[in-house]
């Protein structure tokens, strides 16, 4: 009985997930919502906004600098954990 209920729940969830997948935008379509004006703006205005010729640098240390702060925190945490574990 318990197995049957679990089976039914899994089937219902699976059908719902498949229905959602049907609604997803086509991969790589030019009209997808992700292809909006943000990427264009970064590429066109990066030099004017940040003064950096390298658009990747402009994004990771200016537009998305807070994300890079998180990456630095990951490094700091890794080294703190390492020193805590390995230092005899």
């Amino acid at each position, binding site marked *: 009985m318990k197995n049957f209920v679990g089976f039914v729940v899994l089937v219902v969830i699976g059908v719902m997930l498949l229905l959602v997948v049907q609604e997803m935008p086509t991969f790589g379509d030019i009209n997808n919502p992700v292809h909006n004006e943000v990427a264009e703006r970064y590429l066109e205005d990066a030099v004017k906004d940040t*003064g950096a*010729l390298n658009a990747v640098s*402009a994004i990771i240390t*200016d537009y998305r*600098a807070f994300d890079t*702060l998180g990456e630095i925190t990951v490094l700091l945490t890794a080294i703190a954990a390492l020193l805590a574990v390995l230092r005899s």
Partner: protein
Amino acid sequence: MRNIIVRVIARVIIPFIQLYGFYVVFHGHLSPGGGFAGGTIIAASLILYVLAFGLVAEEKRVPERIAQIIESLGAIVYVVIGLVGVLVGAQFLGNKIAGFPLGVPGRILSSGSILILTIAIGFKVASTMITLFNHLIEDEKEG
């Protein structure tokens, strides 16, 4: 690994690796590269030094204490540069809006806080890599 060939070649090649690493870090806002890539190259030269000359010799050149100070300093510089934006009334980690001089695009001293943040990331990544490596091979230390 205490081979004479390895030591001679390492002695010749390490300055060039470090120079290239510093080039990648300091041109992070101009050419492909940046703090993470350049810091890893600098750390690679130090790792080569450890492999060729041993951990003891490397500890004399870059003491663990200095590496840890550089490590913390990188993160502190990053946060302080971010807080400058808050102090002048713009947002956290703002660049142009926080009043950093942008300079002429294409020059080394340009792009305001991006250059400072890239250098901070570079030194931090380099010291992290070398500290990790030193501690992981410490168990296999032989004379």
